[in-house]
């Protein structure tokens, strides 16, 4: 006869506040095979666990039921306690009377108490049928794939590589660097973004343990923790990267017709169909954008060139100017690129974010070139931006570029671009807005202050207004930064901007509300900067699905537990960091990246991993070899073997994941899913159906 101990947790007031513990205890004491019932304020605390261990050590109990929070977080803790006290840890069962009882039925205390009784009775019914199991061990592949080459991905990769792990760093654009590469300076120290980022980009690219896979995307992921098989598509670059030296000769010869908005400059300037994302790109290699290329020489890759009258081949300008032959169009190129397969033990997702486009905000005159997003402002004031950091109104950037072209050709020219006198910032554009995103994008307050400070320090005559709903500057040295801005004479207005009107002279009329004055205000501004929300990347959901991890309602990746497992996911071996998990600044992204790297390290370093033996097993005595189960298995873990001359199903325990699909389908009940056997689940169901009365077995 099993000796079951039931341990009821108060969870402070969390459970005891809704569930009458004494009443439950009286009920549970009468359940069959229950020999001990105890309660404690916090069962998971050290003294709480000691109560359980003591009973096991004394031989009072040989099955343990804990009625507390949720097995999702606390089952491993209590199993460990059982094991430490010398009990097979699979002689443990949990009743969820907090998350699924007291919290949900807080105002119906009697009914919550009744439900708790039934849930505990169901757990006891299952505990009577538990069986001892032994853990299995699987070998772990020690390679790691990091997806996303922004600041988070770079740090995760570097930490792992420095610890001796082989890292594949997969980045979808032609260069690593991510959004941080687009920033001018970074708060709260105002150090130049490129100065701190580019050395890291070079370091990670040159690290002997890092294999850089830029212009590549994850196509499919199979396998599980320790043994993931990943298919990565290396997109077609149309430039031979073996030969390309990144000299940039091809960039200027691409014809004007093939020019498209430059992603790196957030559309403030144009780039050619052949391009290097930015001057400090790593790797510094050119790619051809096949959608933009107009095949100006009249031939695509692998086609015969057209010829002049005297028979000479007509080459594309990029092809002609390339000193190494990297741009040659002689050979055909597969538009699908190349599919490669990686074997890794762990995966870190660091795919970052995108900023919301201004087009969604009709009230802020998005058609005006002088209404820009904050990321566009970064480009406008950056020394690597379209104007080399010279501050002009964005509507005059084309004039600037023309002027620059003339000057470069040695011609006399006068720059006739307008300098702004008034700049207005609008906060919470798309964030904290029920129409778009209810969350706070977290970094906007600080970057608006930063941009305002940089502008004001460089151009003291500028009038700068920032409209805030609230100024949110928690963080080390952040509020001091805000006070510095105020002292500089930047005008902070508490209130919302209701609308922006485009004026005929390309200036902008800003209508807002000043909560301190208690009345509407109007001002004429040369540039309006919208702090548009940080959003998850469009393809994040797709990637999450491939990895079997969850996204939250707002579209960011969900961590396993907000507080305790902030970089873990529901798929073991897959970790997350940076803005893919939620909006955050650079220090937080780096901290999370390092956390993800160390989580992957502590997972992989031992080389093997314990896995729960909660998988299916065939009883060859009962199996009739009917053939129903094998085709149902999602992992192909079932094969048929000869046992005493008869066909019998056999489950490969290294492949089985324990879903139980075969177990449910077997007409002879020959397959057992350990931990969730037919008898165990049925006993729980029957007990609840009978309102807490356990059927005698």
């Amino acid at each position, binding site marked *: 006869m099993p000796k079951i101990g039931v341990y009821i947790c108060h969870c402070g007031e969390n459970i005891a506040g809704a569930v009458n513990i004494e009443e439950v205890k009286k009920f549970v004491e009468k359940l069959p095979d229950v020999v001990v019932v105890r309660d404690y304020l916090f069962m998971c605390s050290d003294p709480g666990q000691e109560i359980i261990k003591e009973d096991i050590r004394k031989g009072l109990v040989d099955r343990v039921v804990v009625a507390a929070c949720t097995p*999702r977080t606390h089952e491993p803790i209590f199993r460990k306690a059982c094991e430490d006290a010398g009990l097979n840890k699979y002689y443990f069962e949990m009743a969820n009377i907090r998350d699924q*009882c007291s919290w949900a039925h807080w105002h119906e205390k009697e009914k919550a108490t*009744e439900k708790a009784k039934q849930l505990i009775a169901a757990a006891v019914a299952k505990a009577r049928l538990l069986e001892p199991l032994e853990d299995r061990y699987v070998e772990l592949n020690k390679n790691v794939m990091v997806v996303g080459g922004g600041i988070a991905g770079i740090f995760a990769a570097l930490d792992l590589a420095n610890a001796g792990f082989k890292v594949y760093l997969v980045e979808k654009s032609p260069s690593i660097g991510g959004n941080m590469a687009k920033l001018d300076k970074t708060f709260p120290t105002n150090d130049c973004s490129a100065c701190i980022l580019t050395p890291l980009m070079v370091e990670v690219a040159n690290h002997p343990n890092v294999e850089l896979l830029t212009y590549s995307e994850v196509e499919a992921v199979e396998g599980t923790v320790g043994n993931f098989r990943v298919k990565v598509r290396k997109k077609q670059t149309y430039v031979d990267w073996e030969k390309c030296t990144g000299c940039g000769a091809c960039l200027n010869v691409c014809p004007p017709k093939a020019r498209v908005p430059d992603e790196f400059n957030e559309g403030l300037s144009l780039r050619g169909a052949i391009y290097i994302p930015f001057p400090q790109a790593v790797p510094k290699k050119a790619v051809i954008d096949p959608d933009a290329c107009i095949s100006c020489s009249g031939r695509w890759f692998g086609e015969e060139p057209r010829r002049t009258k005297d028979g000479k081949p007509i080459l594309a300008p990029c092809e002609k100017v390339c000193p190494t032959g990297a741009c040659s169009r002689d050979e055909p190129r597969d538009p699908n690129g190349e599919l490669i397969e990686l074997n890794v033990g762990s995966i870190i997702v660091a795919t970052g974010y995108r900023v919301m486009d201004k087009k969604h905000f009709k009230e802020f005159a998005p058609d005006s070139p002088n209404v820009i997003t904050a990321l566009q402002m970064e480009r406008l004031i950056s020394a690597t931006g379209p104007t080399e950091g010279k501050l002009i109104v964005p509507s005059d950037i084309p004039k600037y570029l023309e002027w620059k072209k003339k000057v470069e050709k040695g011609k006399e020219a006068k720059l006739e671009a307008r300098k702004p006198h008034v700049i207005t910032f609008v906060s919470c554009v798309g964030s904290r807005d029920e129409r778009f995103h209810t969350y706070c994008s977290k970094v906007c307050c600080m970057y608006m202050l930063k941009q305002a400070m940089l502008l004001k320090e460089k151009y003291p005559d500028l009038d700068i207004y920032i409209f805030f709903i609230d100024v949110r500057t928690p963080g080390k040295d952040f509020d001091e930064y805000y006070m510095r801005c105020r002292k500089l004479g930047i005008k902070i207005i508490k209130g919302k901007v209701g609308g922006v009107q485009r004026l005929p002279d390309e200036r902008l009329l800003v209508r807002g509300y000043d909560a301190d004055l208690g009345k509407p205000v109007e001002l004429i501004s040369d540039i309006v900067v919208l702090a548009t929300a940080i959003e998850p990347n469009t393809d994040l959901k797709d990637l999450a699905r491939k990895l079997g991890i969850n996204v939250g309602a707002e579209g960011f990746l969900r961590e396993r537990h907000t507080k305790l497992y902030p970089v873990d996911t529901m798929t073991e071996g897959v970790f997350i960091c940076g803005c893919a998990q939620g909006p955050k600044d650079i220090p937080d992204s780096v901290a999370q990246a390092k956390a993800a790297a160390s989580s992957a390290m502590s997972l992989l370093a031992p080389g093997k991993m314990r896995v729960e033996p909660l998988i299916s097993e065939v009883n060859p005595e009962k199996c009739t070899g009917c053939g129903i189960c094998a085709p149902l298995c999602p992992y192909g873990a079932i094969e048929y073997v000869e046992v005493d001359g008869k066909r019998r199903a056999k489950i490969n325990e290294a492949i089985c994941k324990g879903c139980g699909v075969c*177990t*449910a389908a077997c007409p002879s009940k020959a397959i057992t899913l350990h931990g969730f056997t037919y008898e165990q689940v049925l006993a729980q169901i*029957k007990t609840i159906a009978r309102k807490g009365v356990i059927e005698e077995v």
Partner: protein
Amino acid sequence: MSEEWEPNIIVIACNWCTYQAADLAGSLRYSYPPTVKVVRVPCSGRVEPEFVLEALINGSDGVLIGGCHPGDCHYKEGNYKALRRFKLLHKLLTELGIEPERVRLEWIGGSEGLKFAEVMKEFDATIRKLGPNPLKR
């Protein structure tokens, strides 16, 4: 029965989605009827039709199977297996004279705590309308 009849509802929930959603509903304090009690299984594909039938035979008034959304199954395709079995089971229930509305299949994702609570409220209302399970009467 002397006391007023209250439905007895069993939710057989997949560990990765609906069970998580039930936890989330609690932690966000979305309340739903305490008539609902969850039994955890690894996957909706683990649910045997007997589980549902036994629940009804033993006195439950309604059974809801909760799985991951199509395409989101932790085990790739267990939820599709659940869907197929569920459709057959529904036919069988009708033939046995049990209202098929008593047995329901729902896809409730791990982040859908609110949906969990809403579905449970609605299911509880449906069962109340149907009255006690005829097998029990």
